[in-house]
């Protein structure tokens, strides 16, 4: 085995109760935990900017309070709250006078909230969407310093051009969701509909893929002005129409950094791969061992090998326990683009390990050999320094882990 190069790895950890950092020594043998930052706040995503390691952004919420974003320009030493967090446009104030420019059907639609009590209310409150939580953060294209994208629930997409201080709606995406049946739900399955996996083609800043849980994956080639579903081949066995163009449930989609035409997807209904310009996903999870199945949340690719990827299966049977299948947690690896998968459980609990790993809570570093890390629903961070073959518990007793990002310090 090659000796690790001299890089300290820092893991940025977002949890249900605050943020932490876990930093290694130069050979990744000892780890130092720091934090918590913002104890008690829900940190859905904690990211570093690969274009500028001093730039970090956190998507946050508190149990009683609305969503917000914090950003740092000095590698996490100090933080500021966004002066304008992601928010949908204000709906027009309602009045008692009918708007002559509105059709009857539009007026009926706009008053629906009053009847359900969910949106709009008496006495001047407004219809219209409100961001419930900021779930996802993606640094922008290499050519666009300061640009980040955010994904929200209900499904929405937002952009900042100043490193996280002020955010504006990506109107093309948000209008597409609002005007498409079933893409603007709130409080659906656990966690509800969420925008996630915002992927930017390193060859073209205008070419992006975005996914919505219980919504599907969508592509734009004009910087978000227009969108096209790209879900052919993905199963949706929970829907009455399995051939629907969207409505699928991607859990996590990743673009290979060296071959942006190769996408992998961990879906509610299996593991998939697509090689653009193909328009149809292939279910590579069919090649997983049957006892593990191919349900899970995260999927991680090897940054230098387009055919290598890792998943962390969970129990998706019957009522969806969302625990490690059989109480025996394991990482599964493919080295051939999903034609075959190999179980790795060395160091992990051999039995009675009933945790799982959420969609942003698994990542790789860029060191040699590659380090692979995952955080669990019971607050443990596990790391592999041999490219996913064996694991050590790096820290335990943290709150439920929502996201892990690795950066070389």
């Amino acid at each position, binding site marked *: 085995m090659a000796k690790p190069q001299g890089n300290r790895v820092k893991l940025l950890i977002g949890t249900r109760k605050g943020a932490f950092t876990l930093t290694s020594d130069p050979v990744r043998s000892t780890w130092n935990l720091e934090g918590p930052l913002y104890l008690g706040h829900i940190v859905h995503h904690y990211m570093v900017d690969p274009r500028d390691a001093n730039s970090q952004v956190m998507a946050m919420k508190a149990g*009683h309070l609305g969503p917000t974003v914090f950003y740092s320009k000095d590698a996490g030493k100090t933080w500021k709250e966004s002066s304008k967090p992601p928010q*949908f446009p204000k709906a027009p104030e309602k009045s008692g006078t009918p708007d002559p420019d509105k059709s009857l059907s539009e007026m009926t639609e706009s008053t629906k909230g009053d009847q359900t009590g969910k949106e709009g209310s008496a*006495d001047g409150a407004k219809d*219209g969407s409100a961001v419930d939580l900021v779930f996802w953060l993606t640094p922008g294209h290499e050519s666009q310093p300061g640009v980040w994208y955010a994904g929200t629930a209900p499904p929405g997409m937002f952009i900042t051009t100043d490193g996280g201080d002020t955010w504006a709606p990506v109107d093309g995406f948000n209008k597409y969701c609002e005007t498409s049946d079933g893409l603007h739900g709130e409080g659906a399955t656990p966690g509800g509909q969420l925008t996630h996996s915002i992927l930017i083609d390193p060859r073209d800043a205008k070419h992006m893929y975005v996914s919505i849980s219980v919504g599907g994956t969508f592509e734009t080639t004009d910087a978000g002005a227009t969108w096209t579903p790209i879900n052919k081949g993905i199963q949706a066995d929970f829907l009455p129409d399995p051939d629907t163009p969207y409505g699928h449930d991607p859990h996590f989609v990743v673009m290979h950094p060296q071959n942006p035409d190769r996408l992998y997807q961990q879906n509610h209904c299996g593991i998939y791969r697509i090689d653009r310009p193909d328009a149809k996903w292939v279910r590579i999870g069919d090649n997983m061992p049957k006892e593990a199945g191919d349900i899970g949340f995260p999927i991680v690719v090897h940054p230098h090998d387009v055919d290598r990827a890792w998943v962390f299966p969970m129990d998706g049977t019957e009522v969806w326990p969302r625990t490690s299948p059989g109480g025996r947690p394991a990482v599964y690896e493919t080295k051939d683009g999903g034609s075959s998968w190999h179980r790795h459980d060395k160091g992990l609990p051999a039995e009675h390990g009933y945790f799982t790993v959420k969609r942003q809570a698994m990542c790789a570093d860029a060191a040699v050999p590659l380090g692979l890390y995952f955080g669990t629903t019971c607050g443990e961070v596990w790391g592999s320094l041999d490219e996913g073959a064996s694991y050590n518990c790096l820290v335990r007793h943290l709150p439920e882990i929502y996201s892990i990002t690795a950066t070389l310090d």
Partner: protein
Amino acid sequence: MLVHIPSPLRSYTKGASKVDADGASVDELLNHLDKQFPGIKFRMIDEQSRMRQHIKIFVNKETVETVKAPLKSADEVHIICALSGG
């Protein structure tokens, strides 16, 4: 007028549990609070001017349902984070 700030929002008020703010309505009061303590309003009121699910505002011990509720200068306002969850 006197405004009582609940503990989850005191990071904005530098720890103060009581602050002064003015306004002829709850919305104006919250705007004045936001001027003094940037960001505090959006944590309580969403972009459609609706109170967030776990926020309650009391004026002189009476709960108000809308930010359009009127205020008088002698009123006392309590912002409450509803006890919920675990």
